[in-house]
């Protein structure tokens, strides 16, 4: 706001910057450029902080994934051990059926020795038991084969889970590296800010004020151009003199000249 006069020191600084801007339009860096540089600097600081926070969040997610994979690994390991125990159990059942089959055949032999009349009950029992033994043995073989397939799948699953765990470990290390790099980048950008402040003599707050003032000045110049085309100059001068004279004095003050020079 041009009608609010800034404190004398600030006014001198402002005048100095404005004069420098007016004098060095063709130079590489102007106060407006400083403003843009500080704006870019602020954005870089903000983004590097975002990157560091994102890296931490990724590391936290990966740690959770790793914990879940560890639990899964334990479960799969338990399932594999259980499948092994079951395979042993099925082996014992198969042995028992084989023994029972022998008992049935021996009963049939005994029945045959007694003759069909006396050994009939033994022969019938032998056939009956043998039939059940055959069915039971076949079912046990099928179950054993199915269990073997399941055990093979569990072993594959164990391999996949191990790969996931390794991947989580790698991702965790990478996330830590990204986080460290982002933190380092933020430090470097902050350091760059200090050097920028030394090089330009401005700070982020002043640069923002300069940028704002520049934008207002551009708007004022545009408005004056439009007013000059539409109204008599005398009327324009009389209306704007109370506002423009302090500004003109500010721009032509000796301190401003000295600082700008």
């Amino acid at each position, binding site marked *: 706001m041009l009608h609010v006069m800034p404190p004398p020191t600030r006014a001198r600084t402002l005048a100095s910057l404005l004069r420098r801007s007016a004098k060095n339009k063709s130079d590489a860096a102007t106060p407006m450029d400083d403003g843009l540089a500080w704006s870019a600097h602020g954005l870089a600081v903000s983004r590097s902080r975002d990157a560091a926070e994102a890296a931490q969040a990724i590391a936290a997610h990966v740690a959770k994934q790793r914990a879940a994979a560890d639990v899964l690994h334990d479960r799969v390991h338990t399932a594999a051990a259980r499948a092994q125990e079951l395979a042993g159990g099925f082996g014992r059942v198969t042995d028992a059926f*084989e*023994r029972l*089959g*022998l008992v*049935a*055949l*021996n*009963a*049939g*032999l005994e*029945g*045959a*020795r*007694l*003759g*069909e009349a*006396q*050994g009939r009950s033994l*022969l019938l029992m*032998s*056939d009956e038991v*043998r039939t059940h033994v055959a069915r039971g043995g076949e079912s046990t073989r099928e179950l054993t084969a199915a269990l073997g397939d399941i055990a093979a799948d569990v072993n594959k699953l164990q391999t996949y889970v191990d790969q996931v765990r390794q991947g989580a470990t790698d991702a965790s290390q990478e996330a830590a590296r990204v986080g460290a790099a982002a933190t380092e980048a933020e430090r470097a950008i902050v350091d760059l800010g200090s050097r920028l402040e030394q090089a330009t003599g401005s700070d982020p707050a002043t640069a923002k004020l300069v940028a704002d003032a520049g934008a207002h000045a551009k708007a004022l110049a545009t408005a004056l151009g439009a007013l000059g085309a539409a109204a008599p100059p005398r009327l324009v001068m009389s209306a704007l003199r109370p506002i423009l004279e302090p500004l003109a004095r500010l721009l032509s003050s000796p301190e401003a000249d000295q600082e700008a020079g």
Partner: protein
Amino acid sequence: MDTLPAPPSDQRGGLVFEVEGRTFFLSAEHARKLAPRPQIARLPGAAPSLLGLVLEDGGILPVVELGPERATMIVCVHRGEQLGLLGAVGIRSGVFPADPSGGVTVDGKVIPALDLAGLYARLHAATWGASWGG
């Protein structure tokens, strides 16, 4: 076994078993029982077909190899001497229609009788006529 009642002439009781895809019959007169795989004590210098000796029901009997299977041993009797046959898989036991060849008919198929006497004689010849403890 001499006291067994004689089965009708058109029937034979015994054991049907398989050796390397071939099926044989052994009459109940000779087939005493089937036993699980025994612990065999090998005899150095014995004939290749004589696998060794086993302890069965308190007695020692020689074991002859019929085939590669090792799960079951057929304990049989020939001329009062016990003999173990290893390598067979028991299929059925009971009374079956007799076949003129000395075997039986099972499910319409003729099953020849195992030549136990010939096996016994070959074993004796291979062991230089040594006695098995008779």
